[in-house]
């Protein structure tokens, strides 16, 4: 009842003319930013930050938040159409979204993207509304040991995200871990694998690696068969792309995936530092793991779009919990939003929720409105996005490449990053030709540095005592689950051998 009163109060704040306008402006800009590959949310928000000087704090935060979650909707569009993740959290969406588009089912994939995003966001907001203070204590409970154990589970569960040979997947993940090592050692400040290039001391740019391995590599692969889709599939193919009506059963098939993805995302979103990115990878990995036909994944399984998108959108909502309830920014974007509050003379901190109820509940209410608008905005656009594929590749690809280059450059004004996109594009091309999948590499690259960071920090705090991982209950549970998972993987492999049937999913 209390929540309801608060929500109504929030709605009254969010529906104020000025607040509403800025929130809508925010989601539209965010949606666009998401669709444009390479331009990150962080860049967009920092460009628009000066606009907020003249606004009320509530309106400013609503607009900035709108950009943040609006981008999660848009980011999947290019993942599906061009294998080009709009933001890093949309990488897993490429894995099945793009194959779906190639099969002429871009429409259903896009519909699922919006549907799953919306469901994920709703679950996230609802959970946040009911349990925000409780959730914020969860963030405290996660120390280095707990994070380490959770990431271990993520890496093991995710080791199977690639299709094809398990050995090749493992090799790619190790390569990803090695690439993640590039940069500055967090404990000693020693530069590692930077070869004297000063820009590399910050590590390889995640967005550059993702754009190169997925987007640019894909363009290179397509160059030699520039009009292949039409030839392969006949004239009816393109009209199939334009159809946005979901296949019968898509939603039914994805119900479980959306539910699991949303819950996982809501949970991980609360943890500062891991958030949406880990959530979308883990959601994908889980779906593939529990699927009765894991070989469908990577070849156009609709759940492979639904799960990560539900996860990253719910995570994008609950990511506001530590920021609003504790005044602790979970990631650089949140830090920027807190900065906007500071600019308006509001001290973010543990009393924000009580002292500035209009901000907290107004923002929650604006999430509802914003997400409804995003659906209303995107559904009519789906047909248009899908028809984007009818643009001949010789026009579409150079333009997309330009967008990638500009976007990557705008992140830190670094030409090196643009070069890196090309290098990883060529690398990705070579790897794909040799049937190495880039997905495990991305997972290793994303989780590897965190894995090392938390492991070493936990040992630093425990003074080298390894039992810290088993003494802490949360950590012990995660490690126990990891052990069970490994055991189950070995058992099922053995059983398959006993049955004498060859491992499925070996062929690509």
């Amino acid at each position, binding site marked *: 009842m209390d929540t309801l009163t608060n929500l109504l109060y929030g709605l009254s704040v969010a529906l104020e003319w000025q607040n509403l306008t800025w929130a809508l402006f925010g989601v539209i800009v965010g949606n666009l930013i998401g669709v444009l590959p390479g331009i990150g949310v962080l860049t967009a928000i920092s*460009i628009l930050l000066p606009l907020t000087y003249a606004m009320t704090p509530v309106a400013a935060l609503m607009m900035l938040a709108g950009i943040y979650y609006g981008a999660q909707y848009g980011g999947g569009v290019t993942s599906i159409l061009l294998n080009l993740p709009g933001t890093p959290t949309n990488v897993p969406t490429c894995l099945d979204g793009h194959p779906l588009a190639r099969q002429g089912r871009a429409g259903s994939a896009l519909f699922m993207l919006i549907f799953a995003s919306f469901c994920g966001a709703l679950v996230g907001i609802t959970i946040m509304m009911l349990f925000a203070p409780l959730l914020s204590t969860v963030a405290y409970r996660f120390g280095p040991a707990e994070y380490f154990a959770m990431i271990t589970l993520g890496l093991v569960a995710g080791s199977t995200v690639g299709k094809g040979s398990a050995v090749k997947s493992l090799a790619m993940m190790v390569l990803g871990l090695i690439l993640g090592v590039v940069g500055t050692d967090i404990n000693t400040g020693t530069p590692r694998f930077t070869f004297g290039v000063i820009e590399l001391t910050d590590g390889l740019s995640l967005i550059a690696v993702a754009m190169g391995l997925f987007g640019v590599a894909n363009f290179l692969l397509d160059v030699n068969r520039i009009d292949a889709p039409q030839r392969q599939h006949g004239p009816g193919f393109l009209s199939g792309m334009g159809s946005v009506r979901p296949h019968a059963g898509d939603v039914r098939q994805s119900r479980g995936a959306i539910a699991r993805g949303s819950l996982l995302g809501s949970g991980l979103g609360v943890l500062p530092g891991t958030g949406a990115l880990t959530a979308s990878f883990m959601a994908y990995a889980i779906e593939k793991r529990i699927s009765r036909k894991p070989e469908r994944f990577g070849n156009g399984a609709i759940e492979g779009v639904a799960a990560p998108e539900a996860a990253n959108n719910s995570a994008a909502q609950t990511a506001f919990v530590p920021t609003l309830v504790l005044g602790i920014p979970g990631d650089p974007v949140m830090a920027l939003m807190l900065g906007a509050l500071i600019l308006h003379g509001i001290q973010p901190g543990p009393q924000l929720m009580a002292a500035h109820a209009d901000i907290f509940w107004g923002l929650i209410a604006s999430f509802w409105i914003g997400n409804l608008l995003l659906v209303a905005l995107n559904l009519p656009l789906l047909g248009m996005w899908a028809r984007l594929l009818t643009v001949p590749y010789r026009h579409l690809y150079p333009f997309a490449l330009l967008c990638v280059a500009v976007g990557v450059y705008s992140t830190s004004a670094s030409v090196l990053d643009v070069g890196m996109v090309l290098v990883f594009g060529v690398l990705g091309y070579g790897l794909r030709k040799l049937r190495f999948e880039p997905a495990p590499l991305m997972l290793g690259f994303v989780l590897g540095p965190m894995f090392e960071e938390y492991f070493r920090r936990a040992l630093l705090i425990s003074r080298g005592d390894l039992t810290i991982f088993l003494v802490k209950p949360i950590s012990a549970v995660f490690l126990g689950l990891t052990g069970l998972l490994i055991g189950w993987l070995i058992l099922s492999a053995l059983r398959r051998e006993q049955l004498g049937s060859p491992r499925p999913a070996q062929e690509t």
Partner: protein
Amino acid sequence: MWKKVLSLLIAAAIAAPVSMALPQSGAEAADFPTKPLRFHVGFPPGGSTDRVARLIAPRLEQELGQPVVLDNTAGAGGIVGLNAVAKADPDGHTFGFGVSGALTVQPTLKPNLPFDPIEDLAPVTMAVINPLVLVVRPESGIKTLQQFIEQAKSRPGMTYGTAGVGTAMHLAGQLLNQEAGIELTHVGYKGSGPALVDLLGGHVDSVIIDVITVKAHLEAGKLVPLGVTTPERTPLAPDIPTIAEGGVDGFGVSSWFGILTTAGTPPEVVARLNAALVSVLEDPEVSKKLLEGGLQPAPSSPEAFRDRIRTEARKNAELIKAAGMLQR
């Protein structure tokens, strides 16, 4: 992006007639500035450096009568931006932020910098000080610095978290270890936010952090301040004693950033830049905004700024060697 492009266009539009009207007269102070100025922020948009740059750039344009173009080329803790300043034409039209870490810590930690922060840059003025504070949780029962030091002596392996290796926070901790004769273990994070979460969750015992980040927590009684690291109290939180007052004589570490231009710039040009920047930083409206954002305005003369960089670089080098931060 659009803003940058737009401001570049405007800059070009304004600059074109000016450069046509004026014969090339070198970098004489009377003419300075003859073209739009480039301001290297050194960090991506959104951080505190960027906030300050965007706050002072419009005022600087008024003072100097030329557009000021912000450049957010970022990387390596501000080194990449400073490198561009160091390699620019020495005419004062290119300048940028130098943060204390990049100018006084990195040269010792990373011997392969592409430029010499002392020889290749000309200090213009100190800009702001970002005051730091040592905090613990109320649950720890520790209320004063003395209690903290006693506990650290009796319980080896006590930890302190900071925003990362080689930051002013880290140096402050090492100096505290050295001066108070204790052995706190340093736990480096990627930025202050995660360090704060781990303190609140009780995973580290203490944290050295910028005052503004924990101000609300201090006011709410969720954290206990043991002392600010600066030699004097900070106007941001005048009630908190300094660490020196708490019994560690002569203790003083600050995190700051100032403005530098290319070495070899004529002294008159540096003086002109200095005058403009000092008047902007001393503007009541600007200093109020800076303080609200947690930064103490601290304009200075070029000479005072140069001395400060040299003194701190030397002290930090000694500290880094004594603390064995290089050995690993």
